């Protein structure tokens, strides 16, 4: 009899769960943990687990044990290795270095966050000495792989300095022992064959903005020539063609495009996606608009709330899944990055959704005059007259001083999800991140108020959608393919 009781007891788990987070979605509970594992439980199973009543005989026991949801079956080596992989960025310095070549721009986009200056305002151009010093500064980062991204304004308006910076960075990478990636974000309106050749030969990846079909694109992205869409499409096609005709001397990257969703985009998800597919673009980044910079002043006209965006996002994702089932290659970038965390338990390098956020410790924005900011959004706040996110200057400050600047520290502290009461308890904590710049601009403090924070609402909506889609085997198969390496 005593033996029987002992055997029965051994089938029981301890009376408490290990450290888990949960979220009720519909009639089910989503469980997650620090290592990034997740599991779905029905309400009665959740009650059973929390009461310590789940035994080894339960059909879900093995799955929960392997994923670290059973307290007396924790494999610490495995969980620690996964935590380490997921948070690998904590061991490196900033990897993304954004050089603002000029604040001048020939576009006046409705939602512009970059706070562009007029085309004639040459005093906002970066000079070559500053560009070189910025490249030197970027190479100070202990990160073994750095990306230098040339932005604006419209960076092609300062072509000679851009060209000089590319040449200097390539030369420096030869001796610095770091992997160097170069990227250009441009509206392509000033692109020429000569410039394109130079960029391709120097393996600069090219990214542009494409908001969808002509009517919508030109409505959002107002250009002095009036045909922003035509220029963008012309050069996307050109670079696609060059990519198909690879040469042996250098790699030609596929061009990519970014979508910014304004209020005008909301009814047009199909048309936008079809436009991307027709141009052979395989990734579409459905980016929400942020009420920062110029967009904040026009928020009433072009903005929307988290629920509107979530509905648009779900419709877009549904349509992309439908196209995938028909054999079309099209992926949503935000989903891809989140799925990399959820499915592969690894960091995709998405600086907006990590803990702490990428401000200063993951990226640095270099203004035209050599001033350094925590990120490009922080630089925009500076352009509006508030230098709270300024962390130094390439000519005056050392790398160490910049990394320990008050703004760097405060961004790290305020974006630490463990210290954000709502985030520390949220099931999406292993995959999410907060933005101190957004909080500061929208809610008036670096900490913000997460329960009423629309950015939090957006991320919750996106993650709710992804986890729900992953429940269906058909959708899960497609989504997992998006992140199969």
């Amino acid at each position, binding site marked *: 009899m005593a033996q029987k009781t002992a055997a029965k007891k051994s089938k029981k788990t301890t009376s*408490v769960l290990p450290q888990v987070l949960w979220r009720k979605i519909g009639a089910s509970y989503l469980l997650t943990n620090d290592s990034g594992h997740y599991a779905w439980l029905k309400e009665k199973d959740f009650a059973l687990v929390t009461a310590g009543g789940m035994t080894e005989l339960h059909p879900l026991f093995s799955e929960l044990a392997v994923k670290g949801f059973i307290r007396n079956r924790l494999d610490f080596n495995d969980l620690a*290795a996964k935590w380490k992989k997921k948070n690998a960025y904590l061991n490196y310095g900033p990897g993304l270095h954004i050089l603002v070549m000029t604040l001048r721009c020939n576009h006046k986009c409705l939602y512009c966050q970059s706070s562009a200056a007029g085309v004639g305002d040459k005093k906002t151009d970066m000079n070559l000495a500053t560009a070189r010093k910025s490249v030197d500064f970027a190479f100070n980062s202990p990160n073994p792989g750095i990306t230098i991204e040339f932005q604006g304004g419209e960076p092609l308006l300062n072509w000679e300095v851009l060209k000089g910076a590319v040449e200097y960075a390539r030369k420096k990478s030869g001796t610095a022992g770091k992997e160097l990636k170069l990227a250009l974000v441009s509206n392509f309106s000033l692109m020429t064959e000569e410039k394109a050749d130079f960029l391709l030969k120097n393996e600069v990846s090219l990214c542009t903005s494409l908001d969808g079909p002509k009517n919508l694109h030109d409505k959002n992205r107002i250009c002095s020539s009036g045909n922003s869409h035509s220029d963008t499409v012309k050069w996307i096609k050109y670079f696609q063609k060059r990519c198909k005709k690879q040469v042996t001397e250098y790699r030609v990257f596929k061009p990519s495009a970014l979508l910014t969703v304004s209020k005008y985009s909301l009814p047009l998800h199909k048309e936008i996606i079809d436009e991307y597919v027709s141009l052979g673009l395989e990734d579409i980044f459905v980016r929400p608009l942020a009420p920062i910079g110029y967009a904040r002043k026009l928020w009433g006209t072009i903005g929307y709330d988290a629920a509107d965006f979530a509905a648009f996002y779900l419709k877009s994702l549904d349509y992309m899944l439908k196209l995938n089932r028909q054999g079309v290659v099209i992926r949503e970038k935000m989903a891809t990055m989140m799925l990399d965390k959820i499915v592969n338990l690894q960091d995709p390098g998405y600086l907006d959704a990590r803990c702490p956020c990428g401000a200063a410790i993951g990226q640095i924005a270099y203004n035209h005059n050599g001033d350094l900011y925590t990120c490009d959004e922080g630089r925009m706040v500076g352009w509006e007259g508030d230098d709270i996110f300024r962390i130094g200057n390439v000519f005056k400050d050392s790398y160490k001083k910049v990394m320990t600047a008050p703004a760097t520290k405060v961004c790290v502290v305020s974006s630490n999800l463990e210290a954000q009461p709502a985030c520390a308890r949220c099931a999406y904590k292993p995959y999410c991140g907060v933005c101190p710049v957004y909080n500061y601009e929208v809610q008036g403090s670096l900490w913000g108020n997460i329960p009423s924070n629309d950015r939090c609402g957006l991320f919750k909506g996106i993650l709710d959608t992804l986890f729900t889609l992953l429940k269906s085997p058909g959708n899960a198969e497609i989504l997992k393919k998006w992140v199969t390496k």
Partner: protein
Amino acid sequence: MTKTTLSVKVNAKDYDLDAVRYAAYAVSDAAYVFIKPGVGGVTVEFVPKNAAAKSISVRFKGELKDEKLRASIFDANRDLREFMILKALVYEEIPAGVRQEDSGLTPEQEKELDALIAQVEGEIKKESAGNKTKDPLGITRTWEEKYGAKNGRKKK
């Protein structure tokens, strides 16, 4: 927009103040929340920002219940979690075939060290052989030396 203030009494025996504070924070998107001392606990007052007061109090009670469970799980796992994260922070993945530790010594220094170790081991052996008679109780002898291998000596 309704401005009706609603209050909920929370018994200190059921929920501690930390749980009340968090539950109040969780509904701060919909109401201004005031926590006031009361008899045997606290009184929580809600001034709604944009929703009906009744739905806020339902949400608040749900958050309170959830927070109690969360707090008990967190308290029970604090040490385990800290251990796991500490392990993760010091964890180093070594690729297969590169298991050998780098001592930081040059090959010459390694050779010198090996020779020194061999010399010391030799001296210890010599000394212990010479001192055999000084261990009449066989304290320095191993179990196997005294009684043979454990195989076949099962405890009954």
